[in-house]
C-alpha cells in the first residue's frame, strides 16, 4: 500500500457558503487502489468534499490534485474526462432514457469515450456486473430504489474512472441488499479500483475501507484504519454529542 503513488490529494481544501464554512482546511490524500472512507455526523461537509472533487463546486480556498495535476480550477466535465466518476447521495438517474442508455452515457462521454457498438457492449457488460442484465430494456423510472442505485454505479463505472466517488451508495438498502452491495464494492476494490466512499453504515466502513477520515464541522477530526478511528474518543464524542 505504501509504495503506491498518490492519486488524489487535497491541499487546505476550504469551501464556504456565505458565512458557513462547510469544509475547512482539509488535507488528505488517496493512493492508487486504495478505498478511503469519509465519515462524520450529518452536515459535517462530506458531500461538499465530493462535490469539490467532482467539480460540482469550486473551492473557496485550497486545491485538489489528481495524479499530480490540479483539477480544482477545472469544470466538472473536464474532471470527469480526466477520470473522476461519482454517484449522488440522492440517486440521479436519467428518467427519460432506457437502463442501457443510462449506462451508455458514462461509456460515451467518460474517460473511455466509446461509441456505437463498443459503448453498447461495454454498457451491457457493466449491467451484468451490477446485476441488472434482466432489466436493461426497461424505463429506469420503473426500477426499484436499489436498482436505480445500481444503474448509477454502472454509469459511473462505464467511463472507466481513475477514481470512483460514492456518496452513501449503500444507504436505504435492506439488510440482504446491503450484503449484495458491500460484496459488489468489495469486488471493485479487488479488481484494483480506487474508491472514496462517504458512508454512515459502519459495517460497510469496517469491511471495505483501507483507511478512513473523520470530518466534523468541516474539519478533519481523525484519520487512520477504520478500527483505530472508530475507537478514537474524539470521534465517539463527535458522533454521540458532548456528554
Amino acid at each position: 500500500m505504501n509504495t503506491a503513488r498518490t492519486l488524489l490529494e487535497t491541499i487546505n481544501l476550504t469551501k464556504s457558503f456565505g458565512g458557513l464554512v462547510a469544509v475547512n482546511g482539509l488535507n488528505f490524500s488517496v493512493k492508487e487502489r486504495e478505498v478511503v472512507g469519509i465519515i462524520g455526523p450529518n452536515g459535517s461537509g462530506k458531500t461538499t468534499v465530493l462535490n469539490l472533487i467532482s467539480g460540482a463546486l469550486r473551492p473557496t480556498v485550497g486545491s485538489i490534485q489528481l495524479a499530480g495535476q490540479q483539477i480544482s480550477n477545472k469544470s466538472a466535465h473536464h474532471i470527469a474526462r480526466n477520470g473522476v466518476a461519482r454517484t449522488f447521495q440522492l440517486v440521479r438517474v436519467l428518467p427519460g432514457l432506457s437502463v442501457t442508455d443510462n449506462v451508455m452515457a458514462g461509456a460515451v462521454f467518460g474517460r473511455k469515450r466509446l461509441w456505437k457498438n463498443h459503448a453498447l457492449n461495454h454498457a451491457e457488460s457493466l449491467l451484468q456486473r451490477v446485476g441488472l442484465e434482466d432489466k436493461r430494456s426497461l424505463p429506469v423510472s420503473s426500477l426499484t430504489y436499489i436498482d436505480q442505485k445500481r444503474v448509477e454505479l454502472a454509469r459511473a463505472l462505464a467511463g472507466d474512472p481513475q477514481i470512483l466517488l460514492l456518496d452513501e451508495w449503500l444507504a436505504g438498502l435492506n439488510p440482504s441488499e446491503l450484503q449484495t452491495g458491500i460484496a459488489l464494492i468489495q469486488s471493485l476494490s479487488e479488481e484494483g479500483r480506487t474508491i472514496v466512499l462517504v458512508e454512515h453504515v459502519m459495517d460497510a466502513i469496517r469491511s471495505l475501507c483501507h483507511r478512513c477520515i473523520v470530518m466534523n464541522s468541516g474539519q478533519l477530526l481523525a484519520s487512520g484504519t477504520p478500527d483505530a478511528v472508530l475507537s478514537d474518543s474524539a470521534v465517539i464524542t463527535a458522533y454521540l454529542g458532548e456528554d
Partner: protein
Amino acid sequence: MNAASVKNLSIAIVCIVLAALIPFVFNGYWLSIALTAMMYIALSTSWALFSGPTHYISLASGAFFGIGGYLVATGMSDYNLSFWLMMAIAAVVATVLAALIGMATLRLSGVYFVIFTLGLAEMIRNLVSWVQNNFLGSRGLYVLTDFTEAHIYWMLLTVSVIVFALGWVISQSRLGFAMRIIGNDETVARHVGINTAKAKVLLFMTTGFFAAIVGAIIAPRYSYIEPNLVFSPELSFLVVIMALLGGMHRLWGPLLGVIPFTLIWEAISIWLPNFTTLFLGLTFLIIVYFLPNGVVGLLEKLRARVAT
C-alpha cells in the same frame, strides 16, 4: 441500412417530391399559403433542434429572422449587393449573435431564459428601427429580385430538407445523445463528461443560422421592408406555438403542428381577422391541457392503444 431506415427514407423522399410539385399544381392563393407553411416548417423544426431536448424556450427567432430580412434589404437597396452575398452575411451575423446570446444565458434557467430572449429580440428591433430612422433615412427598403413565389417556396423547401437532414445526423451523433442527457439532468450530463455549455451553444447557433436564412429568403416576397415588419415578436411566438403543437420529441413533430395551424390561422385571418390573438391563446391552452406532447404524442398514444 436496415429495413426501417429504408422505409423512413422512402417516405421522406416521397414527401419531398410531393412538396416540390406543389407550385405546379397550385398557384396564387394556395401557393402563398404553402409558402407560409414551408417557412414555418423550416423555422419551427430548426427551433426544436435546440428547444426540444433542452426545454429552453427561446423567443429570439424574430431577431434572427429579422437580421436575415433586414440585412438582405439594406444590402440590396442601399449598397447594390447581391441577394446571395447578403444572405451569407446575415447567416454569419445571426450565428455569431446566437453564440453570444447562448454564452450570456447559459447560467439562466427556465423563465429567465424566456424573458431574456424576448427582451433581447425587442431591444434589437428597437435599435435597428432607431438607427434606420435617424441615420439611414426613414424610408423603407426595397428588395427587388426576379424571384417568383414558386422560387421562394423551393428555396424554403431546400432549407427545410437541410434542417431535417441535419436533425437526423445530430440525432445519430454524440451531440444528439449529449442533448438527450442534458435534457434529462444537466448535472449528470456534466458529471459524465459532457461539455454542456458547448453542446447547448452549438445547437442554439444552428437555430439562429437557419432563422436568418429563412428571413433572407422571405425578404423578396415582401419587396418593401421596414425593421418593424421583419423583427416581428409575433413570429417568435408563432414558431414556439407551432412546434409545441406538433410535439418536439420527434424530428417531424413540428411539421404536424405547422400544417394545421397555418391553415386555421389563414382561415381566421380572412373571416375573423380580429380573433387571431384569441386563436393563439386558445391553441396554447389546448397544448397545455390536452396535448402536452403535441400532435405526435397524441398519435403515439392512439397507436399504442390500437396495438394493445
